């Protein structure tokens, strides 16, 4: 039984569910604060020290609000899509090593990188379903945009994720992360740059935030949502952002691994992991702040004409230089 309790603790508390939630709220706060400072604003200041628990307050507030389900919606899907999307994002997170191992005690299997990316795609699909089931024109347009954008940007994302796997010679996330004595960011920087670009599109951030361009499609797929369901939809989006950054950390920044000057490695690895995630989020926020939003046709053109060919090229380059690069790491 003791083993089961430990397992339950790892999945539900640390580094599983509770930790993911905490990290999400924290990253959300950092994101808002950083973006605000970059935009010459204050950001949250009121709730908690320097507004630190504002994301939690927002979440709790939404939970308490009236939950309206419009008659015209496709009931069941409309109800469950936000929660399912959120669950799949969190589920995907459980496969990422945080304190040196992942939440399910490294009971990972060969190829869980593909599994994680698939889970992310499914979760994204539920975001689309939430808009599609709203039967509101704005939601429908927003959902259609999510789908078009994700379908096209998933391809370069998968191609780019293959490069670290190739360099590590392994398809498991933990193995890729632990094989980076020198982070792949330094060995194959071009892949990382492209990966971040694809990630911006996956996370619907500027210059690719067409699905929720409020001046064009109001709230996008969120338009009809209120109360609890909106809270979960927003939380799902936040987890998605952290998850995206976390995947980038695992694939390119050496995962949670880093120097352990003293004491327990669990604490240090968690610290390194959090700091690296924050670093990726900073980069992503910076990009968000310096770009205007593209039009949906420009977003798609940017993918098919630039990002996808470049990704394939970068994979070819990584494969070609792979043996030489691998020699460097040893």
């Amino acid at each position, binding site marked *: 039984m003791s083993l089961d309790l430990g397992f339950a603790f790892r999945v539900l508390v640390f580094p599983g569910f509770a930790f993911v939630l905490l990290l999400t709220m924290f990253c959300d706060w950092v994101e808002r604060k950083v973006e605000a400072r970059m*935009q010459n604003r204050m950001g949250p200041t009121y709730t908690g020290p320097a507004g630190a628990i504002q994301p939690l307050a927002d979440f709790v507030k939404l939970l308490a609000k009236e939950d309206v389900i419009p008659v015209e919606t496709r009931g069941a899907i409309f109800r469950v899509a936000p929660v399912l999307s959120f669950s799949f994002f969190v589920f995907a997170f459980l496969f990422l090593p945080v304190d040196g191992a992942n939440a399910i005690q490294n009971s990972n299997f060969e190829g869980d990188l593909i599994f994680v990316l698939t889970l992310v795609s499914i979760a994204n699909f539920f975001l689309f379903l939430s808009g599609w089931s709203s039967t509101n024109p704005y939601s429908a347009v927003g959902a259609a945009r999510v789908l078009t954008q994700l379908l096209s940007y998933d391809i370069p994302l998968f191609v780019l994720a293959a490069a670290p796997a190739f360099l590590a010679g392994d398809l498991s996330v933990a193995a890729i992360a632990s094989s980076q004595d020198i982070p792949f960011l330094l060995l194959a920087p071009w892949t990382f740059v492209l990966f971040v670009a694809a990630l911006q599109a996956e996370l619907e951030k500027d210059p690719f935030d067409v699905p929720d361009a409020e001046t*064009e499609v109001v709230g996008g797929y969120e338009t009809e949502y209120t109360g609890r369901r909106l809270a979960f939809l927003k939380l799902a989006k936040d987890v998605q952002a952290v998850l995206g950054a976390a995947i980038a950390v695992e694939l390119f920044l050496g995962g949670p691994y880093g120097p352990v000057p003293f004491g327990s490695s669990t604490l240090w690895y968690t610290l390194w992991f959090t700091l690296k995630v924050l670093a990726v989020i900073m980069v992503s926020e910076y990009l968000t702040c310096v*770009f205007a939003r593209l039009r949906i046709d420009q977003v798609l053109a940017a993918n098919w004409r630039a990002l996808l060919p470049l990704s394939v090229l970068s994979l070819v380059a990584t494969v070609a230089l792979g043996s030489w690069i691998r020699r460097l790491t040893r």
Partner: protein
Amino acid sequence: MSHAEQEIAALFDRELGGKILRTGTLQPGKLFVRVVAGAHRDAVRALLESDGDAGLSALTGLDLGNAIELMYHIRTRKTVVTIRTEVPKGSAEIESITDLIPGAEFHEREVADLLGVKFRGHPNPKRLILPDDWPEGLFPLRKDAKLAAPEMTRSASVSSGDVQPPDDGKLVSIVFGPQHPALIEPERFSLKVDGEIVEEVEPRIGYVHRGIEKAAEKRTYLQDIYLVERVCGICNACHTACFCQAVEAILGASVPPRASYLRTLILELNRIHSHMLLLGHAGFEIGYETLFQYIWRDRERVMDIVEWLTGNRVIASFITIGGVRRDLQDETVSKIKRELSTLEERMGFYRRIFENDATLKMRTKNVGVLSREDALKLCVVGPVARGSGVKMDVRKDEPYAAYGEIPFNVVTYSEGDSWARFMVRLDEIAESIKIINYVLENLPSGPYRVRAPRTVPAGEAISRVEAPRGELFYYVKGNGTAYPERVKIRTPTFANILSFVRIAKGGNIADVPASFASLDPCFSCTDR
């Protein structure tokens, strides 16, 4: 009569012959010609043929008791010529001039709504301003209209501004507004789209019409200053300046030089404020929120200056009949100069962004193109016209306040796209800063106002001001009492809104908010 006026008078004599009833001036320098009913088209055509840049400034309707007078204010390169004609009130009908000047469409619809004149041959004679359930046969601007609680009925015979459901099943209607995040103010634009491409646009305004023209007739001239100031909060000083100029023309009063300079100062501050507001808003519309936040924060500097000058941040209540209401203190001058030099530096930074930022250019270059010909045909004004290469600026064409003495350039761009319209405004801010610096350095001494009488003699005058959004037009008629007989206000957005139909057509639906914002629409002005 000046040389230019004599030329135009001679032109009318030649072209119209016996159809002219009377030629005269509204006020010195403003020619009018009264023609027999039906001959107004010949007069308009003659003017258009003699001046390629001529366009309709405004169409004023006036209730004379048993007839309705129509005044076509046609702007030429240097002045405004008024063509007046009368139609009997019982059967108020006249030929439309929309085939000669397509930009007259909204002007005629407005007069049809408010004064009940039917325009024969109008392409789209639907209601524009009055609500769909407004009773038929009740025309608010007629003097005999009983407006106490009109009974609202939805009558089937009134053609509303609604877009009919698509008939061929190919086009889909998408409605922007009256409530939409891209439209901060309530107006509606029904777009018929084929996929992502806009095929047709039907604007409908009037959702927040306040009847200010009618209300002005019930208030004294002094009260009207504060009423017209509220036509639009952003360009409030332009409205007061324009109204006061018209009243001063009827009074024959002249403003002391110091007041002229102070008026120029507040008018230019209005322009900077308005342009910065729009440029930030444009950033928001194209999802460039950093730009939006930056520009709006820097806009605070202008608000501060306006506060030092007038005591208020937005509604200035600064200009009055006979001058201005407050003097400028010497210590404020240096404060303003310091603030402006910072602002100038910031504007240089924003100009570099608009010139160089790739994503911003992708969203604005070659988007919403309005050709020079269309700009003239649709009678657009201000930065929209100048962005399409029409060199038109009331400050230069017909200098008012102190503009005649101040050196500055009229900014034009020839591209005609959204980007050009934004660039016009950026460059105009730089020009405005120069103008303000000139004003501060060359401020004449002396009184800042003269006392004007409360009662205004019978007479009429028109007045034009280059508001931030373009030419602002006022027509004021006095009847010898303290209350005006008629105040006609034609705001720049009212003249520009028709061009949106042209700009949006054939474009991508995602470009609608951005290209619409590039017109700097102000519905508060449109629904005055």
